[in-house]
């Protein structure tokens, strides 16, 4: 499924909220050179991240990349092999999980099966020995927040998957933690409900003014909910940036390939002048010009998102740069988008082009096996050196 097109502005979605750009802002959570080894296996390899108060932060990566281990270290279920984790200036290493001001929503929800919805939500509050009236009030408030008032006295096995997810959320929010940890919170929901819940999570986070840290392998989910995303691979941090930056300015081939679809043209820098680089790509036998700077002779990849590539049967305007000829190999009609796979002339390269179906028409202007031109502007691509 292709991603929605990115906004022209690459800043945060909440434009006024970008504490990570402010050098004087003090982060709430700091991972400092955190390493975690299980025997010979290094799950988290020298990770340093600053997460600010009221941020919705996503750890994104494939399974086994260390994102869950990183979160479990913040919750206190694992201790780092080396490095420091601080929360509001307090060093967390050695603090047991039941004394940490963070709460977690588990992937499996981990609801207590012998307790009712109410008792589950009240569990954390009872541990703090709050007065009975306050516990009751807080439970009521949580039930209202997740819209589960009619189900207060039900047991978890009498609820649907979506309702259980809400109980788990309410239970982890009831203690008003400084940080809410969400471990693949929507993994068990179907697609429609998942999307709905993503927006609810964002509203909830804004309404409560809490810091949310979400672990997910679903890039769309991370892009939807997060202010900033940390992409991880093999225990290492690859890039930390806003969703827009991650999508439009990936730092390397890995991030470019992991988030959304992308065309990568392997090329060599022929010349670089005035913010414009000339590239020779042996792969497709063409010369590209791209915005940026690079040392002549360097091997780079020119990364271009499919929606930034244009396609037509007629020749492009005379001043168009980066033109390739090809033949339509495959067409995927997705309703909102149509994806064309174009085989470039005299090469094996398949160029991916996507077009938003802004007009309601039954016939596509381009059909199977048509000879077409594809082209993109010099500022459409990103130069990747690693």
């Amino acid at each position, binding site marked *: 499924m292709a991603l929605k097109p990115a906004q022209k502005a690459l800043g945060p979605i909440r434009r006024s909220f970008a504490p990570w750009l402010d050098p004087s802002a003090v982060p709430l959570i700091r991972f400092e050179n955190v390493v975690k080894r299980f025997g010979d296996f290094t799950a988290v390899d020298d990770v340093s991240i600053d997460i600010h108060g009221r941020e919705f932060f996503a750890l994104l990566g494939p399974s086994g990349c260390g994102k869950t281990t990183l979160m479990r270290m913040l919750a206190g279920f694992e201790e780092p092999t080396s490095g420091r984790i601080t929360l509001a200036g307090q060093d967390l290493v050695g603090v047991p*999980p039941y004394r940490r001001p963070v709460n977690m929503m588990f992937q499996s929800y*981990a*609801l207590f099966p012998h307790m009712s919805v109410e008792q589950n939500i009240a569990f954390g509050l009872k541990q703090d020995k709050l007065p009975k009236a306050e516990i009751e009030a807080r439970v009521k408030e949580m039930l209202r927040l997740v819209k589960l008032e009619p189900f207060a006295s039900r047991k978890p096995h009498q609820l649907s998957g979506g309702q259980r997810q809400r109980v788990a959320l309410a*239970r982890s929010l009831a203690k008003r933690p400084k940080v809410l940890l969400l471990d693949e919170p929507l993994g068990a929901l179907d697609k429609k409900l998942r999307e709905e819940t993503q927006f609810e999570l964002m509203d909830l986070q804004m309404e409560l003014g809490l810091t949310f840290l979400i672990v997910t392998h679903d890039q769309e989910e991370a892009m939807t909910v997060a202010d900033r995303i940390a992409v991880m691979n093999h225990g290492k941090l690859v890039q930390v940036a806003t969703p827009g930056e991650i999508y439009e300015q990936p730092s390397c081939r890995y991030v470019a390939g992991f988030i959304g679809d992308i065309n990568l043209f392997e090329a060599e820098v022929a010349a670089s002048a005035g913010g414009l680089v000339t590239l020779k790509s042996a792969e497709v036998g063409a010369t590209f010009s791209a915005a940026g700077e690079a040392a002549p002779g360097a091997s780079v990849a020119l990364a271009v998102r499919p929606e930034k590539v244009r396609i037509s049967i007629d020749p492009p305007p005379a001043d168009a740069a980066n033109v390739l000829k090809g033949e339509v190999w495959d067409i995927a009609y997705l309703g909102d988008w149509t994806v064309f796979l174009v085989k470039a002339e005299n090469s094996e390269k398949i160029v991916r082009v996507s077009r938003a179906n802004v007009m309601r028409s039954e016939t596509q202007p381009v059909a199977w096996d048509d000879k077409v031109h594809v082209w993109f502007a010099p500022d459409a691509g990103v130069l990747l050196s690693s």
Partner: protein
Amino acid sequence: MTDASAPTPAGASPWGRRLVIAIPYLWLLVFFLAPFFIVLKISFSDTVIAQPPYTPLLDLAQGWQGIKDWWAGLDAENYGILFEDELYVASYVSSLRIATIATLLTLLIAYPMAYGMARAPKGWRPMLLMAVILPFWTSLLIRVYAWIGILSPEGLLNAFLLGTGIISEPLYIMNTETAVFIGIVYSYLPFMVLPLYASLEKLDDTLLEAAADLGSPPWKAFWQITVPLSLPGVIAGCFLVFIPAVGEFVIPDLLGGSETLMIGKTLYNEFFMNRDWPVSSAIAVLLLLVLVLPIAIYNNVQAREVGAKT
């Protein structure tokens, strides 16, 4: 969906299913219900010096008159004896008391064992289970005799304690109630450990993590999460130990003294020493009632709880 009305899977005939269900019922009918009715019948009879030692006997050769005569000869006199003679009441009360205490002791020892087994590395668990079941490979009688060798004044335990200087006088455990407790706890421990292990092993570790995350230290989480979720295992284990322990005969006979009163021993004496089959049958029937009633009530409560859930 060609035939939505058929509840059985394709190919399985309802008769096949009924046959499979009938086998255990038939077994219970022949080997449990029929003997029970024979015992019930004898309990309403009177004792005589004859072979068999009770009357009336059902004589079907006499036809309808034979059945009528037999029915007229039955009475509940033996049950009256059970309540008149203090020995029987005291035996029942003492049996229930000893079985209750022994069950609680077994639970106290079995719970940490089962907990340790359930928390042990996965590879060890089959071996630990084997170790729990291993004693069954030796006859119960031999194992109880072995305890005589351990507990008697000149036995292994005293030899060890005297030898190491922990005590200066031998302990007299044999032929006391303590010996009976030791015997029952030892013999029935596997019946408590296995259901406890089964319920503890199913416990999801993330529930304990969730409890810790919400501010509950490990010792509190044990009482709040682990214990309530292992309750079905506790109840099953207690039934499995308590019920046979009430009627236990071998252990009090071999390890207990003359003052240890248990209904199994009383029943044995009535049957083999006094040859009073009707009274011993009445003892057995009353014991069954004493044990079945609480189980029936418990089952009823359980069923209602399950009914409320669905």
